[in-house]
């Protein structure tokens, strides 16, 4: 087959792209997986979710500070591990595999990226990053979880002067676990202690990633960056967040596939293992293909972000357009192929389905990301 030459303005793929996992990444994965196996098994996740406070501070402390996962994206000079997006992606794969209720995507990815981009504007952002990197505090952006890269930012909150902020933001993920909220106001980015905000938790579709409406009523915060820096920081963070969310979706899909295969090998109906029926084998084989391709897409996004590749926005859009559908399909197949068991509250499949479906809205739907692909690949709408 022949190929078209690169088109003008058409982002060419980078030469060295690394889609594998390094030895260090494998070690990190093993550490996170072992922690989650001990402290985050599905029955415990469900039990905590039913209390309305799904986060486990002890688990978070071990993950963030003990393993050092919170500071992976933070340079060493700011107290972090100086690793990068590839490593953070591996952590997210494991968190997805366990539907772990921890503020990693919101705190260690989105908030961290925002603060890193603002750290050159003043010492306050850098100080916050240092705290975040070692897991001493949880900081999440006060932005709707559905906010997508490339979409218009929501109207900024009002600053009455001196960082006294008022306004409301809906669908803020993990706000209930936060010590500090990052607030986008008309005067720039502000850090607001969470106890100065009024939080109205909503009942979330995804029990493992709580949502709240955040209202500020003349709440005082600390300004971290001017409006232009703040907007650019948020845009960059949304790109990273969307790219790394693909890895969470991959981990989630892998769990669903593995569990379903194991179940169908053991479950007998009609005097045969259910997994010997060709109709079901083909569905699982197709799902395996989907997961294998999601792995390539998610790795490509992580690598593109890690190397600040020129085509990172396209690679991220491709990963999101693909992986969110794979995660939902995997979770839906998991429910269906477990039969009646898959519909029960006690089997964890529903936690995965709810996370997968919520993830398919988080940081932009697949449709939104296909629209971005249309722009980057110069395939304009009619």
């Amino acid at each position, binding site marked *: *087959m*022949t*190929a*078209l030459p690169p*088109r003008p303005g*058409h982002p*060419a*793929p980078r030469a060295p*792209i*690394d*889609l*594998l996992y390094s030895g260090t990444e494998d070690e990190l994965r093993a550490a996170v997986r072992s922690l989650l196996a001990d402290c985050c098994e599905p029955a415990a996740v469900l039990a905590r979710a039913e209390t309305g406070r799904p986060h486990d501070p002890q688990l978070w402390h071990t993950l963030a500070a003990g393993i050092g996962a919170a500071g992976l994206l933070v340079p060493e000079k700011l107290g972090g591990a100086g690793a990068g997006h590839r490593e953070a992606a591996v952590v997210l794969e494991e968190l997805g595999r366990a539907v772990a209720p921890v503020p990693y995507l919101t705190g260690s990815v989105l908030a961290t990226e925002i603060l890193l981009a603002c750290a050159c504007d003043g010492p306050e952002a850098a100080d916050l990053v240092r705290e975040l990197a070692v897991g001493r505090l949880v900081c999440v952006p006060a932005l709707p979880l559905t906010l997508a890269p490339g979409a218009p930012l929501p109207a900024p909150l009002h600053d009455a002067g001196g960082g006294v902020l008022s306004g409301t933001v809906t669908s803020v993920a993990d706000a209930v676990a936060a010590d500090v909220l990052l607030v986008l106001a008309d005067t720039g980015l502000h850090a607001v202690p969470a106890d100065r905000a009024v939080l109205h938790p909503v009942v979330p579709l995804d029990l493992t990633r709580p949502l709240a409406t955040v209202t500020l009523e003349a709440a005082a915060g600390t300004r971290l960056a001017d409006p232009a820096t703040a907007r650019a920081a948020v845009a960059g963070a949304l790109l990273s967040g969307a790219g790394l969310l693909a890895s969470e979706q991959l981990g989630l899909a892998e769990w669903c596939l593995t569990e379903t*295969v194991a179940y*169908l*090998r053991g479950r007998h109906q009609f005097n*045969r*293992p259910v*997994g*010997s*029926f*060709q109709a*079901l*084998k*083909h569905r*699982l*084989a*197709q799902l*395996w*293909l989907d997961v*294998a*391709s*999601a*792995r*390539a*897409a998610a*790795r*490509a996004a992580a690598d593109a972000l890690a190397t600040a590749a020129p085509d990172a926005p396209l690679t991220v859009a*491709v990963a999101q*357009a*693909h992986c969110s559908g794979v995660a939902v399909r995997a979770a839906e197949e998991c429910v269906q192929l477990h039969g009646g068991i898959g519909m029960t509250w006690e089997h964890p499949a529903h936690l995965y389905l709810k996370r997968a479906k919520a993830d398919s809205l988080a940081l932009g739907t697949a449709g939104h990301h*296909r*629209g971005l*692909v*249309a722009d980057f*690949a*110069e*395939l*304009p*709408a*009619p």
Partner: protein
Amino acid sequence: MTLDAADLLARTRDLLAAHPPGATAPADFLRARFDAGLAWVHYPQGLGGLGAPRTLQAVVDGELEAAGAPDNDPRRIGIGLGMAAPTILAYGTEEQKHRFLRPLWLGEEVWCQLFSEPGAGSDLAALGTRAVLDEEAGEWVVDGQKVWTSSAHTARWAILIARTDPTVPKHRGITYFLCDMHAPGVEVRPLRQITGEAEFNEVFLTGVRIPDAHRLGAVGEGWAVARTTLMNERVSIGGMRLPREGGMIAPVAAAWRERPGLRTHALHQRLLGLWVEAEVARLTGERLRQQLAAGQPGPEGSGMKLTFARLNQEISGLEVELLGEEGLVYEDWTMRRPETVDFTGRDAGYRYLRAKGNSIEGGTSEILLNIVAERVLGLPAEPRDDKDTPWKDLAR
């Protein structure tokens, strides 16, 4: 001593210095390359290789390509390179390897594959072509019919599987042969297909005599030998390397950019969905290659053919629709016998029709899904009753 990349680069440069491509006849260059062990570096010395790691072939190929060296027209001799050669290497006698591999690689002898039969496609082991030993002459006498044979009309040799014992279950009792396509009793007829062309053939074998020296592997062990061939076929089908927006998506994307009048919102959504899938498939193939290069072969290879088959069909279907009235027109129904399949040099209608074969040739998608389910996911096989039944007692 294992050769490394630097050694192979040095040997490649020595070859280029001794036989400058510009001043050497292509055939002479290819012979020199084979004899220098740079044809298949992982093959043994004297058989076109140096016993080097297989992954280092890319070092040689890259250097030769940069120097403008001639190639051996791998598309024309793909069956020989991709299927016959690795099987002969794995199962051939020293005499067979030395007799066949060199002319095969040079393209002096084209190979074809006589496996499928009208009654044995996906159930290949059910084949009924008979081979009976004439003990006095030391020859096998072959009778039967084969189908879907690419290159049979240009081939000098064929890899052939035939039933040598009908009284044992179907996977046993098969023997693998190297068949002379010029032997009396071999008749090749074009098989016209859905595109109007005859890219394949039917081959009728009537009293064809094959010397026992041209048997590959033991009598009755042909199925194991054939599996080596088939594994290599699937690897070569799924293994092509594509740049971003390479392959079937390229002409559709080009038409979309260049002809705004064809655009509709519904087609746009489908195009973007397929563009994303094609890019993800490209990345999946790239990841597979990186795994192989790192010595961690993954099972993803089994999936690439499935993915490309489905994508090619969906993309070419979209392309016909996108073209509107032009999609109603077919370029040419004249019966032709092309030497190679050309996916990109032809019209959308041809691509649409030809892509229907992608999910059938080299193992149907249904069979490949079974393989993924059983070998990769470890799901149990469906109960079957043909494994212990003599071939002659099976329903046909």
